[in-house]
C-alpha cells in the first residue's frame, strides 16, 4: 500500500494500466516531456516511450478526434484535456462522434477511450480554469461521466474507465488534487462505473454530492452527526449512468434530500436527481427536496470565487432548515 493524493492516484492508475495493456496510449498538451501541467502523466513517457505517451499540437478537437480514430482501430487512448474549460473546442467530436460511433454502426465500431480533465474551481485560477459543467456531458446520449472524490476511488474508477468498452469522460476535482492522501493498493483494481457509494449511513436526510464538493459534504455530515442529526451521505461517483436505485432507496428511508454540487443550478445535476426521486419516492417525501449548487452565473475570478462555491456551513444550515420543515 502507498499513501497517495488524488493526482498521484491518477498517475498510478495510468502507470498500472499501461503496464498491463500495451493498447493503452495517453496524449495531450504537455502530457509527454512535461508530464502534464498537474503532473498527472509524469514519468509515463520515460517509462513507456514516445509512442505511448506524447505531446500533441494545441487543439483539443483533434486530440479527441484522433483518439476516436485510434479507439476504432483497437487502441485504448486516454487523452488529457488540460482544463475542463478547454473541452469545449472538442464538443463536436464528443457529441457528434465519440458518443455515437457504437450506435451509428450498430456496434461494429466502438470508442473505448477516456477523456480526462481536471474540473472545479477554488484554486485561484484564471478564467475558464474553474469550470464544473459535467451536466453538459451527462446530457449527451452515449457518454459515461465519472467523477471521483478520493485517491482510492480515483485509481479504481480510472482503471474501470480505461477498461470500459464505451467512452468515459473522467472529471478530476482539481481542488482536491493534493488535498489529502489515502492508502491506495499498488496493484490494479476496479470500482464499478454506475454505482454510487454510501459514504455514511443515516436516517434523517439523504445528502447527495460528488467530486469537488464532497469535502464540504463530508464535513457537514460529520458536524451534523455531532449535533445528533443523522445524515445519509452519498457520493454519486458516476454522473451518467447514475445510480438511481441507491438514491431512491435512501430517500425512501430518510424522506428528505439535499443535492449539492458546484456547477450551475439550472438544468444541472441536482435537477435530475430531484426530478427522479420526486417521481420514484414521492410518497416518502417529508420535505421539499432541495438543491444547493453554483448559481447560474459565470464562475467568478479568484477575487470573488468564495461567492460561488458551496461551503460546509451552507450545507449544515440548509440541512437544519430542511429538517425544520413543517408542511
Amino acid at each position, binding site marked *: 500500500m502507498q499513501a497517495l493524493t488524488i493526482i498521484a492516484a491518477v498517475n498510478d492508475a495510468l502507470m498500472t494500466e499501461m503496464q498491463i495493456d500495451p493498447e493503452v496510449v495517453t496524449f495531450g498538451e504537455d502530457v509527454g516531456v512535461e508530464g502534464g501541467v498537474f503532473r498527472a502523466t509524469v514519468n509515463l513517457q520515460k517509462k513507456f516511450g514516445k509512442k505511448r505517451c506524447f505531446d500533441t499540437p494545441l*487543439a483539443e478537437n483533434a486530440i479527441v*478526434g484522433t483518439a476516436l*480514430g485510434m479507439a476504432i482501430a483497437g487502441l485504448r487512448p486516454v487523452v488529457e484535456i488540460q482544463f475542463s474549460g478547454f473541452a469545449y473546442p472538442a464538443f463536436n467530436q464528443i457529441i457528434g*462522434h465519440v458518443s455515437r460511433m457504437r450506435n451509428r454502426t450498430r456496434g461494429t465500431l466502438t470508442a473505448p477511450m477516456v477523456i480526462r480533465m481536471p474540473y472545479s474551481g477554488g484554486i485561484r485560477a484564471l478564467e475558464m480554469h474553474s469550470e464544473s459543467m459535467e451536466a453538459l456531458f451527462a446530457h449527451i446520449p452515449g457518454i459515461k461521466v465519472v467523477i471521483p472524490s478520493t485517491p482510492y476511488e480515483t485509481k479504481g474508477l480510472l482503471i474501470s474507465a480505461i477498461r470500459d468498452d464505451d467512452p468515459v469522460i473522467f472529471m478530476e476535482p482539481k481542488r482536491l488534487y493534493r488535498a489529502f492522501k489515502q492508502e491506495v493498493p499498488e496493484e490494479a483494481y476496479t470500482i464499478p462505473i454506475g454505482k454510487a457509494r454510501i459514504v455514511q449511513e443515516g436516517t434523517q436526510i439523504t445528502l447527495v454530492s460528488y467530486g469537488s464538493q464532497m469535502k464540504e459534504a463530508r464535513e457537514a455530515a460529520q458536524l451534523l452527526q455531532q449535533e445528533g442529526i443523522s445524515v445519509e451521505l452519498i457520493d454519486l461517483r458516476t454522473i451518467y449512468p447514475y445510480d438511481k436505485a441507491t438514491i431512491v432507496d435512501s430517500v425512501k428511508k430518510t424522506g428528505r434530500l439535499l443535492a449539492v454540487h458546484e456547477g450551475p443550478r439550472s438544468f444541472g445535476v441536482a435537477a435530475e436527481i430531484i426530478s427522479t426521486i420526486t417521481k420514484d419516492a414521492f410518497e416518502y417525501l417529508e420535505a421539499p427536496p432541495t438543491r444547493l449548487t453554483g448559481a447560474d452565473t459565470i464562475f467568478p475570478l479568484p477575487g470573488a470565487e468564495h461567492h460561488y462555491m458551496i461551503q460546509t456551513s451552507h450545507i449544515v444550515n440548509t440541512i437544519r432548515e430542511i429538517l425544520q420543515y413543517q408542511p
Partner: protein
Amino acid sequence: MFENYDPREGKRLQILNEEGQLNTDLQDMPLLTNKQALEAYKIMVLTRVADEWAVSLNRQGRMPTYPPVKGQEANSIGSILAIKSDDWFVQAFRELGGLLIREVPLSQHYLYYLGNEMGSYYERDKYHILPISVPIASQLPHAVGLAYAEQYRGTKKIAIVFNGDGGTSVGDFHESLNFAGVWKAPIIFYVQNNQYAISVPRHSQTASTTIAEKAFGYGFEGIQVDGNDVFAVYAATKIAAAHARKGNGPTLIEGFTYRLGAHTTADDPTRYREDDEVADWIKRDPLIRLEKYVLQKKLISEKQIEKLRQDAKKQAVAAFEEADNFQKESLDNTFRYTFKSLPPIMAEQLEQRRQLEGGSR
C-alpha cells in the same frame, strides 16, 4: 514526389483527356492496367446507374433525401483502386464508387439513405471503412487517429480520408492536416473539389488559388489532379500511398471535379449556378471519357456496354428492393447500441416507452 505538379505554379495532373486519350508524356506515372481500367469502368457504370436510380426513386417518393455523386465518380474509384483493401477508407458522403470497389453491397448504401442504421454497419475487419460522416470535415481527425494506430503497430497500412471543398473551411481540416504533418502519419487527404458547397461556390469558400496548395502550410505536399480522370486520380494516390507507407507522411490530393446533379434531391441548383457551366462540365464527364478509352483499347464492345448497363440497372433495382424490405430498426435497437450494455436508467426508459407504444419492441 510531385515536384513537376506544384499546384502553386498552376499545374494540374491530367493523364486521360476528355477524348479518352492518354497523355504519352506521362509514361513514368503509375497507370491502370487494362484489367484495372475495365474494372474502374464497370464500377463507374454501376455507380452512375445506381445513383440515377436513387434520384428517380426519390422523385417517386420511395427514397428520402439523397445526395447524388454523378460526375464525381472517378475520384473515389481511382483512389480506392490505388490502395490496398485493408487500408482505412474514411468516407465523407460522395464516395459510392469507392464503396463499390471495396465490394460493399449496394443495398447497404441504399439502406443508409432509407434511414436505417444498419446502413452504417461496415464490419470493421472486413471492410476497414468508416461510415458516412454527416458533420462536414469531422471525419478527418478519425483518419489521422487510424493512421497513427497503424504507425504505432508498424503495419504499413495507411488511411485515406475524403472531404469536400466546403469541408476545407472547417477547423477539423486544419487540425487534422497539422497533426498528420507533425506525426508524419501514413495518410492521404483527398478533397473532392466539386466547385460548390451546396450553393456556395469555391471562390467564396477560400481565397487560395487551389486547395492543393494548402498542404504546404503543414509541411507536406499537395497536388491538384483532374478529378474526372480516373488515371490521374489513380496515379497520384498510388504515389502518395507509397510515400506514406515508406514513412514519409501525408499528402493532400485535390480532385478537381464537378457535381453534375443537385447537392441533394432536396436542392435546386438552378438557383445558384448557370446552365452553361453545367453544360461545359458535362463534356468533361469522367464516365464518357473512360468509356472512350476502354472502347478505343477494345477492352469492351458497345454491345457489352449495353449489357453492362442493363445488368447494372437490374442490380440497382434488386439492391433497392432488398434495402426496402430490410427489417426496420426496432424500438429495442434504438436503445441497445447506446452502450455496450443497457444501464438501468435506460432499461427503465425502454420499458416505459414500450408501454406507451402498447408493447412494441
